[in-house]
């Protein structure tokens, strides 16, 4: 008896409390109603119905924390004020990790934003899970000339011949060098190294542990495909699912790398990327390979630096390419999609691309913009154009790319650079791990 009473009471309270919170929740979505309809109601209060010509509010998530986010926000604010299509973009910036946790669940529940800006390496996993809209009709529908943009940049947003993202920025790794430290070490401050041998030779000369000064920063949380490629090695073949790690070339490169890092101590031991960035900005690292995002920080700290292409080995010089693209999550309705196209088109205009490159130091990839005199006269942008040409895509459009990085390549380089294992052992371990990943 009593037990039943309690049970009844409990369920009554439960129902009450549930309906209660349902009501108090500001714009509650009715349970069970389907897809696109309830999306506007849950995500923002301000979105209204999106008939032609009426106001459209677009929710936009991105991972641009830090200073480049400030510049992005200015551009978006400006767009909100000036566009004639009555489009308002609600921008929400969040750390990359948070975005990766929320976005898939949001797409699955149709509460995703209308468009997202993230790194191109994310496109393939999302596409293989059917979570992004195919926007292959973009160039035609939005009336944008595809041929005006460099192919290697545009290609980053394609998977199996279909387009899933509209390019936003492109980057490769450069070799930064500190001219003042070069001069102090008796090297020509205007001549960066161009080969692996020179890189090592300079790094040794530039290292002075008594001053906590290092020749070359080699953070352990990174991959160094540029070194493997330079000697003709590679990690895996995307097309055949083949493991390419076990090669003489790779062993030679890794042995060289370990000798430089462990025996010649040209790098601070066990540093993360963020640590190395800070040391570069503090003038404690003379040479460092990183993307364009270093430029603003180095300028702010008043470092006298130069930018060069990554160095060459026996096979040539390469640099891993990356970028960011605007993508549209699955489930965004046509009216909103059309509005997102308008913003994508706006971004691809020379005026905006120019603003972005000049303020951030990212390379230019619009052919008409490359002819622009301001761009040609920009000291930073002209010095990176050469370094940009050797960009090479790494595991492009491959859903396993991030797993290969996290489970195979980063541990491999960490073992080699810290000297935790011999290059032979590290390579053997990595190769086994690679087989596991590829065998899935």
């Amino acid at each position, binding site marked *: 008896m009593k037990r039943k009473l309690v049970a009844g009471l409990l369920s009554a309270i439960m129902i009450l409390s549930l309906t209660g919170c349902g009501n108090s929740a500001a714009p509650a*979505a009715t349970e069970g109603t389907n897809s696109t309809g309830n999306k506007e109601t849950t*995500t923002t209060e301000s979105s209204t119905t999106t008939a032609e010509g009426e106001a459209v509010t677009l929710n936009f998530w991105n*991972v641009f924390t830090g200073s480049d986010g400030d510049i992005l926000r200015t551009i978006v604010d400006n767009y909100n004020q000036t566009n004639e299509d009555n489009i308002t973009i*609600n921008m929400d910036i969040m*750390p*990359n990790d*948070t975005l990766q946790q929320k976005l898939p669940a949001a797409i699955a529940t149709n509460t995703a934003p209308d468009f997202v800006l993230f790194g191109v390496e994310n496109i393939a996993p999302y596409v293989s899970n059917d979570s992004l809209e195919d926007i292959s009709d973009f160039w035609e529908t939005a009336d944008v000339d595809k041929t005006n943009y460099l192919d290697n940049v545009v290609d980053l947003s394609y998977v199996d011949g279909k387009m899933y993202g509209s390019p936003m920025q492109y980057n490769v790794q450069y070799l930064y060098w500190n001219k003042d430290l070069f001069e102090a070490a008796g090297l020509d401050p205007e001549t960066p190294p161009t080969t692996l041998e020179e890189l090592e030779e300079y790094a040794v000369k530039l290292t002075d542990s008594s001053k906590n000064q290092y020749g070359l920063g080699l953070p352990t949380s990174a991959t160094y495909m540029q070194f493997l490629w330079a000697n003709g090695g590679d990690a895996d073949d995307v097309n055949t699912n083949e493991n390419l790690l076990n090669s003489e070339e790779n062993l030679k490169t890794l042995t060289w790398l370990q000798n430089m890092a462990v025996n010649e101590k040209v790098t601070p031991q066990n540093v993360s990327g963020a640590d190395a960035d800070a040391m570069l*900005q*503090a003038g404690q690292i003379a040479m460092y390979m990183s993307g364009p995002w270093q430029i603003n920080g180095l300028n702010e*700290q008043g470092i006298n630096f130069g930018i060069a292409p990554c160095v060459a080995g026996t096979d040539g010089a390469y640099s891993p390419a990356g970028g960011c693209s605007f993508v549209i999550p699955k489930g965004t309705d046509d009216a909103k999609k059309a509005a997102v196209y308008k913003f994508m088109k706006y971004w691809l205009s020379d005026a905006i691309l120019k603003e972005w490159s000049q303020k951030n130091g990212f390379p230019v990839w619009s052919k008409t913009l490359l002819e622009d005199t301001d761009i040609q006269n920009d000291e930073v942008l002209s010095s990176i154009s050469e370094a940009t040409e050797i960009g090479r895509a790494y595991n492009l459009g491959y859903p396993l790319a991030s797993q290969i990085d996290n489970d195979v390549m980063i541990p491999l380089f960490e073992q080699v650079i810290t000297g935790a294992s011999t290059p032979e052992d590290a390579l053997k371990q990595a190769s086994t791990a690679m087989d596991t990943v590829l065998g899935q």
Partner: protein
Amino acid sequence: MHKKVSIKNIIGILLTLLVVVSVLFPILWLFVSSFKTDAGVITYPPQFFPREWTWKQYQYVNQSIPVLKMLRNTLTFAGLTTLISVSFDAMAGYAFARMHFKGKDILFTIILLTMMVPFQVIMTPLYLEEFKLGLLDSYAGLILPRATSAFGIYMMKSFFQGLPNSLEESGRMDGMSEFRIYRSLMLPLCKPAIVSLGVFHFMNNWNDLLYPLMLTSSAEMRTLSAGLAVLVGNKAIKYGPTLAATMISLIPLLIIYIFCQRYFVEGIATGATKE
């Protein structure tokens, strides 16, 4: 009071002071470093005090994010959550400590079990559930899952267990209802415990990063710690603003702490020596 200066006392004083230094040093470092320039934060050799004091980092934070709005959001979220959670925790803790009912042990074990679940584990199911209930991106959706906690129940249970039995018996003699006994006799004695649990909840919710980020989708709903996380920077970390942001999130807590401090340091003693 007469003092004996013995070796033991000296060891005690040295020990306590050593810990004071180890506690204050990093916090002092944070405070002074938030007034350094970008170059000052990452200079070598490192400087403890800024070479030049600047408000620049605070100005940058204030320009980049709506600090006041986020502060209001955080206060609403953490404040309401704390109020509700403390009341529910105290009630349940009281029942487990002072009342007899069937299934008490099993229910308490079950409640303890919920303490063992890392948030990362239930994060995705919780998101889906809140979506089904229409709670995403609302204060209700943020507050309800935190409206009680196993830790709080456990803690209140421990405190209620320490109270003398004579009290509630006298209440029963007077024919008071269980709720009145709890409300008028027992609860007032637990004020210090309640304040310290409240401070605990408030701090946890105030400092929580992942939880509010996961369950809200609009910038309108952002809490302070989640908003400040955006400043840190993805590829290029901005150390100066990060330190200023850390300081900003800390100051309100410190103020609240100073206000409540005397309750749970002094009060607990007076609360239960009425034996």
